[in-house]
């Protein structure tokens, strides 16, 4: 069993959990993820490792599906049945010169570890975090502290630059040389934002989040097409060269179980109602 050390609500439907998992914490590197299973009837769900402190790892997630909603009902002191990790290849950290790291929505969760390791490797690190509105921005202070330069964007202009992270990135690319870019967020955001770096020929990494089962290269559920070849995101990734990724296929494959996910969620909501659970214990 893996104990939840703390559970905090960061924004609407967005939660930050610190989970005790010594074997993960000891070896975790930027860009890697865990798979957790809540209980005997649970599914295996991948979540990016957002930070490490002692024996604990941090995950940040949006409670949108059945499992993430159920996870969000856990309190500090509760336990998770299974946690395995760190999985996937670590980010390719080197001293490249100037690196820009972009997080969109809940994808911001992945940015601090990568930014920190890039910084430690001697890079000049530019951070951009973007969300639909100011209320959905997370990890602002943390990223501000790590990054040499830091930008905020909101779609509605309620904080920082009015617009998308892609707009800020484009402006930066016009002004100076950027050596590497990382983009982490929803698939559509990664697709659009990574398109910006193509004409500048800047190597750009994206962290892909397809559906997984084992997460160790055994099933191929997470297969993605990269540069015309089939890759397994769990072991060949999750980070890939953005300019080679077939994002349309990724988004299609993310929708395989839309119907079942709805059934599962409705069943869970019904159960929560009957048990009188509100699901707002974190405020």
């Amino acid at each position, binding site marked *: 069993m893996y104990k939840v050390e703390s559970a905090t609500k960061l924004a609407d439907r967005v939660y930050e959990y610190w989970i005790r998992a010594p074997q993960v914490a000891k070896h975790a590197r930027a860009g890697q993820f865990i798979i957790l299973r809540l209980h005997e*009837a649970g599914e295996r769900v991948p979540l990016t490792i957002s930070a490490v402190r002692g024996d604990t790892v941090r995950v940040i997630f949006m409670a949108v599906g059945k499992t993430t909603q159920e996870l969000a009902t856990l309190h500090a002191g509760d336990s998770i049945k299974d946690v395995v990790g760190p999985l996937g290849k670590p980010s390719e950290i080197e001293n490249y010169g100037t690196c820009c790291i972009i997080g969109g929505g809940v994808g911001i969760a992945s940015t601090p570890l990568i930014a920190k390791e890039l910084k430690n490797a001697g890079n000049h690190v530019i951070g951009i975090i973007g969300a639909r509105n100011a209320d959905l921005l997370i990890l602002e202070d943390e990223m501000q502290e790590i990054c040499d330069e830091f930008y905020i964007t909101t779609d509605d202009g309620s904080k920082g630059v009015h617009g998308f992270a892609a707009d800020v990135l484009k402006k930066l690319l016009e002004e100076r040389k950027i050596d590497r870019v990382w983009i982490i967020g929803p698939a559509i955001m990664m697709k659009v934002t990574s398109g910006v770096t193509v004409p500048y020929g800047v190597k750009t990494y994206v962290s892909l989040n397809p559906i997984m089962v084992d997460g160790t290269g055994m099933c191929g559920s997470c*297969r993605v097409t990269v540069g015309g070849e089939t890759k397994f995101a769990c072991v060949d990734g999750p980070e890939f060269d953005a300019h080679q990724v077939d994002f349309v296929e990724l988004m299609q494959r993310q929708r395989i179980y839309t119907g079942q996910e709805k059934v599962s969620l409705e069943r869970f909501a019904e159960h929560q109602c009957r048990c009188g659970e509100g699901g707002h214990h974190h405020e």
Partner: protein
Amino acid sequence: MSDRPADVRVHDFREVDTGLSAAEAIAEAERCLQCKKPLCVRGCPVCIDIPAFIREIADGNFPRAARSLKDQNMLPAICGRVCPQEAQCEGVCILGNKETPIRIGALERFVADWERGNGPELPEVAKPTGKRVAVVGSGPAGLTAAAELARAGHAVTIFESLHEAGGVLTYGIPAFRLPKEVVKAEIDQVLALGARLKKNHLAGRSISMDELLDYDAVFLGTGAGLPAFMCIPGENLNGVYSANEFLTRVNLMHADAFPAFDTPVLHGARVAVIGGGNVAMDSARVARRLGAKVSLIYRRGEEEMPARKAEVLHANEEGIEFFTCTNPTRILGEQCCVTGIECVKMSLCGIDASGRRSPEPIEGSEFTLDVDMVIQAIGTSPNPLLVSLIPGLERGRRGNVAVDKNGRTSIPHVYAGGDIATGAATVIEAMGSAKRAAAAINAMLKGE
């Protein structure tokens, strides 16, 4: 012993073969000629003293039969069910020349089941040697190595990346062929010998290579987990599965019981399974139990199928439609979902490197099957994750770990067995190679 009727069993995941009664087992055991030079033992990859345990059954002494069996094999209830006895012990039984060979597998299963039901007796464990051994993977090879080494008194730690032990026994072979409580009970027996199991530990990631190599000996039994795909157009459409994924969703994650269990699986109405091995039969029969009309597509003839004859027969009985001498060329889709599979008929001519007739496409024989789901069961290759992380570990041509006949790798105290060393093979072959490696590890640790 009898098989449950096909029209009944396709509606559940309970075991097909109901096993022998005590009277049937004794009668069968009495047929054994008790050969002086038993061929059956030579046909057994783990060298079970077959006449000895059969003699005990004939005498009605089931506890002694179990003891004799477990002397060489700690997983008898599993082996009794999934070993291809017809190609091993039973295949060489002298009685097979005139009548039917002794049903050794059924007898092995009977004894193991009898013992499980009557409180298993634990084999003797040597006193602690103070040596630490890491076993990576808890499939047939890892469990066998762990059992042998724990019995020799070494402190064994098994590392398993999944949340359940058993490897392919748990995620791969369906319950109607190998009930999960049988697997669990035999794993518990291995653990009762003193082996420690660390689940949720992916070696190379959750434990570093340095931590692993710090053990006095390491046994790699990470299996052939990497699924092969055909590399034909349409393969990444929604509704195309590797057999590994489809079977894992059902066997390990219980997707057949969705939404009571959270993991979903697609329920195709018409499913094509590609392949002719045991995994293809398992996939087809699981899909059938999920309610599909199943077509099995294999590029050679039924005679050439690598699956056990009994499994081919079971699949046939359960209404799986066979398209032999047929090869898929393209998976068709609309709106990213599968709508059909385009195939070509094959003619068999010449003999290829595998000794089987070599299939060639027949021009103009293309046809399309209307299906909404495809499962590819065309083989797996050695899991590259861990072995690629061990510097200096020599690998063979197919990505397997290179070993000598005793399972020694290119690194002095690292051994390997099972599919990671041999490439995809059977449960019992994995166990045989693990046993040889365990013996070599034991000799090394004793300074012999």
